[in-house]
């Protein structure tokens, strides 16, 4: 229920903020119509904090074990770097506390080199095994994880917001009848309350929201690869990996329905975008596919990966696999060169982790100039051509 308290000054800012037009002046007060979807944007906008959402708690907090569990991911039998990032982050939270970090894998076979998980901070490593499980069958992976989590009830489950993670985690959350928050950009675990504060972009990336799963357990969150940093520690205790053979009864027949007919590898640059050290990215300001091809050539000369804003991808100047931003790839390079990118929040959400951002945009009002380390207000074509000229000269043998 949306409530407006008596401190309301009738300034009307909330009325303009509501995307559904649910607030209006009525009889010298602000009235809430049935158009309200409880999105909460008005709460943030009210300058005097007069607006709140009241809610009732129907259930007490469900019991859970003092475990932070990482639902790990395998790519062709190899642990993904996103999984290592989650282990590192969680183990930072629990150091010297009553909580411990567990990593769980679901597979048809036992993956190799799993004791390396301990050097990233895992306290226990578990493999759930059954021949029905496949890396690319979300339903079987979810069934396996759910079978384990129904028994062990950790307080928190973290998954990677990779394509597979985003397919599997909702199935696990539904099975465990708990809450799930996708694509978190920040997580904060309160050790006293045992509550995970989950922050993610909302409303198309225009606003940030902090979410909690107050009473249901486990608290589930997914995090995009590249948000956290993986750190290998020394002096960790290596233990044997626990292998659990799941019975076939762990899987309902509908969960086994997928039959794979064909797998085709698509050619990609060697280094994935989210691991690139230098990225040269282009946006709407490039103006044409030809200009984008010139930018791609510059990227090649710089040994950099090519990135694109959503506008560039929608104009078909670059494929979606090059897209950087909230709905594309999240990157954290040492250096990010943004050519002709205006700096929409959805794009900035993808480059927050970059060490240095150089923005080249001839519009001094472009939002990207406020959020870059270095701002170049110049015609990007001149800058690109000059860079190419200098670099080509350097490559010429004397």
């Amino acid at each position: 229920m949306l409530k407006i308290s008596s401190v309301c000054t009738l300034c009307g800012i909330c009325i303009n903020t509501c995307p559904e037009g649910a607030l209006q002046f009525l009889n010298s007060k602000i009235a809430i119509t049935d158009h309200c979807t409880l999105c909460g944007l008005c709460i943030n906008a009210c300058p005097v904090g007069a607006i709140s959402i009241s809610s009732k708690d129907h259930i007490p907090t469900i019991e859970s074990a003092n475990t932070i569990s990482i639902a790990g991911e395998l790519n062709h039998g190899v642990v993904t770097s996103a999984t290592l990032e989650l282990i590192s982050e969680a183990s930072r939270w629990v150091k010297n506390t009553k909580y411990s970090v567990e990593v769980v894998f679901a597979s048809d076979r036992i993956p190799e080199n799993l004791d390396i998980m301990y050097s990233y901070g895992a306290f226990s490593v578990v493999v759930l095994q059954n021949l029905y499980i496949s890396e690319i069958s979300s339903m079987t992976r979810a069934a396996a994880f759910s079978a384990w989590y129904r028994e062990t009830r950790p307080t928190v489950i973290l998954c990677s917001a990779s394509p597979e993670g985003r397919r599997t985690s909702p199935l696990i959350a539904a099975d465990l009848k708990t809450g799930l928050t996708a694509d978190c950009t920040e997580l904060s675990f309160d050790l006293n309350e045992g509550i995970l504060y989950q922050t993610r972009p909302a409303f198309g990336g225009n606003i940030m929201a902090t979410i909690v799963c107050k009473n249901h357990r486990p608290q589930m969150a997914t995090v995009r690869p590249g948000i956290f940093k993986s750190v290998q520690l020394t002096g960790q205790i290596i233990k044997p990996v626990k292998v659990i053979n799941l019975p076939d009864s762990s899987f309902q027949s509908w969960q086994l329905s997928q039959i794979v007919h064909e797998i085709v590898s698509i050619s990609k640059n060697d280094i994935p975008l989210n691991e690139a050290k230098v990225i040269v990215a282009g946006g709407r300001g490039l103006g044409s596919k030809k200009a984008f091809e010139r930018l791609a050539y510059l990227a090649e000369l710089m040994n950099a990966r090519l990135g694109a804003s959503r506008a560039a991808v929608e104009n078909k100047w670059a494929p979606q696999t090059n897209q950087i931003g909230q709905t594309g790839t999240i990157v954290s390079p040492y250096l990010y060169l943004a050519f002709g990118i205006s700096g929409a929040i959805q794009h900035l959400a993808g480059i927050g982790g970059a060490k240095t951002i150089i923005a080249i945009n001839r519009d001094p009002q472009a939002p990207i100039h406020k959020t870059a380390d270095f701002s170049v207000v110049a015609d990007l074509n001149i800058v690109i051509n000059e860079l190419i000229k200098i670099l080509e000269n350097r490559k010429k043998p004397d």
Partner: protein
Amino acid sequence: MAFRILVLIKQVPDTRKVEMDQKTGNLRRDLMGSIMNPEDANALAWAVDLKTQFNDVYIGVMTMGPPQSEKVLKSACCHPVNEAFLLTDTAFAGSDTKVTAQTLRAGIEAIENEAGFFDLIVCGHQAIDGDTAQTPGQLAHFLGRPCALGLDFLELKENRAFYCFSNNDEIITASIKLPGLVSVTKNINTPDFPTVRGVIAMKNKPIRVFNRESLNIPFDGCGLDSSPTRVVKTFFPEFSRKNILIDFSGAQCAETILKIMEKMRIDA
């Protein structure tokens, strides 16, 4: 009946067009508008195309939302849709994805009890206001049906749905047995505009409305109060960086950029 298809759609503010004044929190509402979630339009277009491939295809369209969501159902009805269903109740407001999925399940089961199973439930992959892509998978689990999510290609053959989806650096072709649930991405097709005839036909298509009571959902089984997740804070993203202006000619800018790279020990 060759196939009974249900398309789930959502009315969303056009968050791609949002302009926010960060100081006052004002949204330019006149610029924003309410639209059918783009990937739901892809889902609807896929279903409509099915009518050109098979005889006797039934398409139902359903949405859960506040009363003004009727608008998006009317838009859908401008296409060859047979029936439209609106699940609306103030008690549904503030639902997170789990509770939304539970409410949709109640609506779907109510209709299936009357008229029989849907062979396929088709959703858009994710909504541009929530961006979670969670509701379709949760709904599939609650219905106990096989699902395939994030599809770039989809076709029906006999009693199976064949599809393609991408996983890292692979494209996978697979199939599930019907009845099932799928979510499709914008890569699957380009939706057509409705025809004039379609717009006229829309006026004769009634919208069936269900509320909490008619779906037999208890008070504590829907809406904000029964949602496991709650928003505790919203704020504008902050970016704080050094911000040094390089104000030379384009040529000098290029040299300066390379000098910065050298300082950072990046080889070019």
